[in-house]
């Protein structure tokens, strides 16, 4: 077993995947964004309330693997209270982390970035981020 596997499934990622932080249905939310991977069936809904251009409240619900759950949870936490410009910067930062080009990625981003070392798993890490980016682009 290569060390990358342990580094991917490290404690901080697994804890994040199990945490219930932000895991909450929001059927009344202003915006409901679907993040769905037809290959594996992973499926999250992101619930967003915007106050003009600021994320007033965000939560998510659904199911997926440890990687997609951790990544979605991270996204939801990170955008809380941010305005759209900040959200865009965050997405850029996430992309840099995923491509290994961020200077100071932080432990959990580093773990997520390792997904690309494993067949077909990078999609799990980026699933919700991509859906969120598409949403912002479409505003």
């Amino acid at each position, binding site marked *: *077993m*290569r060390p990358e*596997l*342990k580094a991917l*499934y490290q404690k901080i990622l*697994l804890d994040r995947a199990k945490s219930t932080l932000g895991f909450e249905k929001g059927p009344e939310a202003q915006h409901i964004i679907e993040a769905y991977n037809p*290959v*594996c*069936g*992973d*499926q999250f809904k992101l619930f967003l309330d915007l106050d003009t251009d600021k994320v007033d409240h965000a939560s998510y619900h659904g*199911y*997926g*693997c*440890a*990687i997609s759950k951790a990544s979605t949870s991270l996204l939801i936490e990170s955008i809380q209270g941010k305005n759209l410009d900040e959200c865009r910067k965050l997405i850029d930062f996430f992309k840099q982390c995923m491509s290994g080009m961020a200077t100071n990625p932080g432990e959990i981003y580093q773990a997520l970035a390792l997904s690309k070392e*494993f*067949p077909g*798993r990078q999609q*799990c890490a980026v699933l919700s981020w991509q859906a969120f980016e598409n949403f912002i682009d479409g505003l």
Partner: protein
Amino acid sequence: MLDVSLIRKQFPIFSTVNDAGKPLVYLDNAATTQKPWVVLESLSNYYRTLNANIHRGIYDLADKSTKAYEQSRGKVAQFLKVEHLEEIIFCRGTTEAINMVAHGWGMDHLNPGDEVLVTAMEHHANFVPWQVACEYSGAKFKVLPLNSDGSLNLESLKEALTPHTRMLAVTHISNTLGCINPIQEIVKIAHNNGTLVMVDGAQSVSFQELNLQDLDCDFFAFSGHKIFGPMGVGVLYGKRELLQEMSPYQQGGSMIYQVGEQKTTYKAPPHRFEAGTPPVADAVALGTALDFVNGIGLASIKDHHIQLRNYAWERLTTTDHVQLLGSPNQSAGIISFNVENIHAHDVATILGEAGIAVRAGHHCTQPLMDHLGISGTVRVSFSIYNDFNEVDQLIDALVTTRKIMA
């Protein structure tokens, strides 16, 4: 048990290793099988010595190429024990074969008021084409509910058939749970009701001996790549009388009798259904693959599958936190399970790192997943080159998975 070490020598892929340096434990045979040397040699030999377009040329190569292709059709006919050569149509695979029937037959024979019945365990390939054919024709699309363990219920089947049911689409063996459906009995029930039966044989053809005359189904489909043959070739069987009155799904060269500016007539089956240049080399190599299978013997192959399955079922049952799906009775070399609190994809990634290739997900059976109330499973599926030791490796890797993900 088969002599696995002897068999493995015939499959070049087993000398490869994965990115982590591990040798290949290939347990994804329901998705596609590996190819023996004889099949690769058959492909290459075709292109090196026979390559020409068929059915049209009057020179040496064209003639030999045509003969090799038609000889392979004969091998398929024998393999499925069908009476008439023209009941065997070469196509790309199971998916195309079913589409040919759903759309080619469906176009002329489905009307508003008619019904098509499919089971909830069908692969998308035997589900969605019928759904679409119903949409176009105005026929009603009905899904047959299953027992709680995912198996077929013949009583429900009898109830679901109505005087309007024109077609029943049913898989021979579930690609997700491995359960074997009693096709002969099902066909009798359907025929008594005046209903035709399309059997998806993708998983049965490499598992047990088949006799389509005994099964008496009206259509049967399989893919070459799931029985040690190349990708890109498969077979549709159809009863002669049905094919004779069926419209061609595709039009083009080789299937035409006469083209007029306003009206075109077609050749008789099987050519009517083989428009354009077919995958000749692949069809020839499929014949070689069937020879290879006959050489080993389907009785031994079935026994091998069942032994592996029973052993794996037993070991998985006694492995902590593993939840098996389906039932061990009446089933082929396919097992689906989940590991408590661990997503199938995470399991598959960790197994993959150990060199163990399994599938994780819905296996193109979302309606079955919905029925079982799950989003996916880990699936292992066996073939002639697998052995008990590989099952043990699987169990060890599952234990490791739990440790890593705990």
